[in-house]
């Protein structure tokens, strides 16, 4: 592992604009400012030497235990050394009344027993470590600046800050019930606002209280409630509050294989996740967030409608050109990419997700206005004209486009939902006959070209024999009856061919990219849900118990997991995994006696 922390050892804090990764050793190794998709100021997770970090730890050998304060996104790390015990509470504060910093991380240090010598170091590296940083003081506060970005460190009873060549350092003894506080504040294109200690601590306390109140709004009372609430708290951190968009993950380029090249930027909002997101938020009682997200993606997609982009930037922009950064990558996993070249791909499944999201939205009591109805009808018309084309599929494979079965099935879902919405009066009814005819044509295509008698399963793409875990979504999206022999056969075949203990790999066969990858956690949760839908409740419960047990110590998941060592792989925390967990828990819970 060397100078890198295991991905499993990270927790996250955030404020609805950006997210920080906090390691078990107390180091903030990832933070983009001012927003989640801005460049990083702390990027040690991607380059331990040049990335920058905010370290805070005992100067002695120690053990660390962590938890979130119950029902919050405020992290508590307790360090135990041979001479004492100290607790660090990390919060990214929310704006309260009065003038406060634009962005603020508050780290409170409480000495619980004995005496613990502590040290901290802030190494700001703006622009993913490439920008020139100037360190200076404003009054008694060290300030780092780079262009229009600025960051300051305010320490109270936590040692006197020393400006070194490229860092701000401090040391102090935490002893006998005393407490200290360090606030790191930041601003872009505006003056820094320096808080007093009382203001910073008050905001941190109010932030914890906000999260407690927000969590209490969850109406879910089913099984695995703790995991479900932690998942929705993690999702809330991925919501970019200024626009309502939801990022797929908080990071870029955390590798799908250590040393591998499958390193992607997930700090964008995928249309694919839309129906899962809306369903999860609405099922758990978060109406305001669901509504904001629906408004966001109906507004964001207007630039390209009826064609959908695979994802949109958090600010709603359509462009995200991919480039590589001169960073070493997590444990040498290069390239480190920002932007995402998948934006220009044709992924037909997204159309089904969008229309299913609209269907979920109105099913749960919301309304569609006439203009939105017309837009959605134009999307359904687009599906009629394009479902026969090959596409890159849900997994965004970079091989030549193929006739992916899951994409075709989601085109069927798109038309099915459009017909239902038209019947209910939300979409114009005139084109419904065409939608119906094309939906039947899609079903015939899938039945004839996408089924393997040899495998007794639907296959990854037409004419092939490879299997694909995303076909589980055919059951979840109600492509057919739950007791359909073909869906049951597909679930069985996928579990046998792609399973590794409780985990599932994505697919068999080649995807056009070198290197391997771990098991995909969202697929594993989809399997649990598909089993529940198929009436195999006990198997679903057993699998769910195992999967919930694979979360890290604070209940979070990365995109993938190594099946043997259970090491996390890929971007972190990943929204789709937490969405799949919520969906599976709800589906199983609904079928419990």
């Amino acid at each position: 592992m060397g100078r890198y922390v295991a991905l499993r050892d990270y927790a996250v804090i955030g404020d609805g604009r950006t997210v920080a990764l906090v390691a078990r050793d107390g180091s903030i190794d990832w933070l983009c400012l001012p927003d989640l998709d801005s460049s990083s100021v702390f990027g040690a997770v991607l380059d331990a030497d040049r990335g920058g970090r905010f370290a805070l730890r005992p100067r002695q050998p120690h053990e660390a235990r962590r938890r979130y304060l119950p029902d919050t996104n405020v992290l508590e790390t307790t360090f135990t050394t041979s001479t004492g015990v100290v607790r660090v509470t990390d919060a990214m504060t929310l704006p309260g009344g009065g003038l406060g910093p634009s962005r603020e991380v508050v780290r409170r240090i409480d000495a619980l027993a004995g005496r613990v010598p502590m040290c901290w170091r802030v190494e700001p590296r703006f622009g993913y470590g490439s920008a020139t940083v100037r360190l200076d003081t404003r009054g008694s506060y060290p300030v780092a600046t780079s262009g229009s970005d600025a960051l300051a460190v305010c320490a109270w009873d936590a040692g006197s800050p020393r400006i070194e060549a490229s860092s701000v350092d401090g040391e102090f003894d935490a002893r006998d019930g005393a407490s200290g506080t360090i606030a790191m504040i930041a601003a872009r294109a505006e003056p820094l606002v320096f808080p007093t200690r009382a203001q910073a601590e008050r905001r941190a306390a109010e932030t914890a209280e906000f999260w407690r109140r927000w969590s209490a709004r969850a109406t879910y009372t089913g099984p695995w409630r703790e995991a479900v609430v932690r998942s929705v708290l993690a999702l809330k951190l991925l919501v970019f509050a200024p626009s309502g968009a939801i990022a797929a993950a908080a990071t870029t380029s955390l590798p799908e294989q250590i040393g591998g090249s499958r390193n992607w930027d997930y700090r964008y909002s995928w249309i694919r996740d839309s129906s899962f997101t809306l369903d999860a938020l609405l099922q758990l009682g978060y109406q305001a967030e669901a509504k904001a997200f629906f408004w966001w993606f109906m507004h964001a997609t207007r630039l390209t409608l009826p064609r959908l982009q695979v994802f949109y930037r958090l600010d709603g922009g359509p462009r995200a050109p991919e480039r590589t950064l001169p960073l070493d990558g997590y444990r040498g996993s290069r390239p480190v990419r920002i932007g995402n070249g998948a934006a220009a791909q044709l992924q037909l499944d997204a159309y089904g997700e969008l229309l299913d999201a609209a269907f979920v939205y109105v099913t749960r009591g919301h309304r569609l206005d006439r203009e939105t109805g017309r837009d959605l009808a134009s999307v359904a018309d687009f599906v009629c004209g394009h479902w026969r084309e090959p596409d890159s599929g849900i997994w965004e494979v970079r091989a030549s486009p193929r006739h992916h079965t899951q994409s075709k099935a989601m085109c069927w879902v798109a038309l099915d939902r459009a017909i239902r919405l038209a019947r209910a009066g939300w979409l114009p009814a005139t084109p419904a006959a065409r939608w119906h005819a094309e939906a039947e044509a899609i079903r015939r295509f899938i039945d004839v070209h996408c089924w393997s008698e040899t495998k007794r399963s639907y296959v990854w793409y037409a004419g092939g024999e490879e299997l694909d875990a995303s076909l589980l979504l055919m059951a979840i999206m109600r492509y057919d009856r739950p007791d359909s022999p073909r869906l049951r056969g597909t679930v069985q075949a996928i579990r046998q061919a792609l399973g590794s203990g409780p985990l599932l790999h994505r697919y068999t066969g080649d995807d056009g990219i070198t290197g391997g990858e771990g098991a995909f956690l969202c697929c594993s949760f989809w399997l649990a849900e598909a089993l529940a839908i198929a009436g195999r409740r006990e198997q679903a419960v057993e699998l769910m118990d195992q999967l919930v047990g694979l979360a890290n110590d604070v209940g979070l998941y990365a995109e993938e997991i190594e099946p043997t060592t259970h090491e996390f792989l890929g971007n972190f925390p990943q929204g789709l995994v937490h969405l799949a967990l919520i969906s599976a828990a709800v589906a199983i819970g609904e079928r419990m006696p």
Partner: protein
Amino acid sequence: MSAWGALFGGFAGTLVLTIMFAAGSQLRLTRMDLPFLLGTAWTEDRARARVAGYAFHFLAGLVFAVMYYAAFAVLGRAGWVLGMLFGLVHALFAGTTLVNVLLPAVHPRMGTSMSAASSSPLLEPPGFMLMNYGPATPILTVLAHLAYGAIVGAFTAATPR
């Protein structure tokens, strides 16, 4: 040069500006929809928001025309070229400050850079030069305001005092 000419020019200029933005929206060049942005300050209902937004938008067009007229009067001359120059300044002010900063600050349903987890705004903020609504939006904004300025300038100059 007359105030009535400026007011009529303001109405006609707003009409042309509105048509240009609507055409840009239909051509998928921009997601900018000023009546919608203004109207949603009062209601979440899209149709009603547009009605209220159009009314406010045309009122704003007349108010800006009066401001143009004041500037023409100070300079002692008016014309479509000078109007276009005012339109350019108007567009830059709108893109950098008026719609980018001031509108999100007062709009109850629009996010700002300070919106945090404790809020769930329904509208994404326009961003610098309204770029969040599509990369072609700044160009369209400038062109539409050049047209508005030229029309206000021309009508102001063409009507006798």
